[in-house]
């Protein structure tokens, strides 16, 4: 196995704070073709009971993957990123991310296992506000292709 199995269960240091902005939510929603006014119009979002414009559910990847970058680049783990494909992705939201959230992420390596000649790596990234409110759990499985 190419990945260091001793890393299973390891929790990494929290990321630097990330500030969710209206402009970034609008840019992401536009890029994926999401047209819901709740992503673009603060009044519409407030009318629907949200504090500000909200992000589409998969926006959490922007935050979780930048937060998990230090894990992927950890030399001791031994991941060859050029051989990586995205295997599975899952988000569990306690509430949507909205503009004005300032969040930090913390990533734990849950599983490292061989699949034939490949190896899969599953990480759990918790997204919380700097005040400690849990917003989203992102579960990411990467597959490192073997030769």
């Amino acid at each position, binding site marked *: 196995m190419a990945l260091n199995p001793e890393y299973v269960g390891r929790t990494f240091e929290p990321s630097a704070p990330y500030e969710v902005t209206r402009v*970034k939510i609008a*840019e*992401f929603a*536009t*890029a*994926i*073709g*999401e047209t*819901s006014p*709740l*992503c673009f119009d603060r009044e519409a979002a407030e009318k*629907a009971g*949200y504090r500000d414009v*909200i*992000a*589409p*559910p*998969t926006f959490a*990847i*922007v935050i979780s*993957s*930048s937060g998990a970058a230090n894990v992927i680049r950890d030399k001791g783990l031994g991941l060859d990123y050029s051989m990586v*494909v*995205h*295997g*599975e*992705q*899952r*988000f*569990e*939201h306690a*509430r*949507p991310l909205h503009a004005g959230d300032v969040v930090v992420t913390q990533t734990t390596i849950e599983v490292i296992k061989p699949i034939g000649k490949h190896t899969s790596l599953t990480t759990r990234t918790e997204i919380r506000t700097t005040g400690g409110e849990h917003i989203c759990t992102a*579960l990411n499985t990467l597959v490192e292709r073997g030769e």
Partner: protein
Amino acid sequence: MLTPGTELEPKTYRATRLDLVKYCGASGDFNVIHWNQRIAKSVGLPDVIAHGMYTMAQAGRYVTDLAGGDPGAVEEFGVRFSSMVVVPDDDEGATIEVTGTVAEVRDDGRAVIDVVARQNGTKVLSRARAIIRVS
């Protein structure tokens, strides 16, 4: 009103090269296989391929529509990336067809939706499931 066992109307979504470039910028994922045909082919891919997360986002639009157009009502959403979406260098790009089945409707106003996405009949998202708030 969602009823368990109901097969939902399929919808199609597009992925052009421009869409992928926009998604690179918005997501911060600039992996060359999503925008450079020469390098994509040199590493053994048939052509430029879409970000798995772009495809997941299209399925996310599908379940958002089921949740009354409220992206915040998509509480849980998970997928398996079972095949690549190949995006040719033309004006049409790739067509992703998304279908869904109502797996469960819960007493707490939530519904469980099983989702499949295909390109040219090949499953690109499998074991995809969303839990949405419907009331």
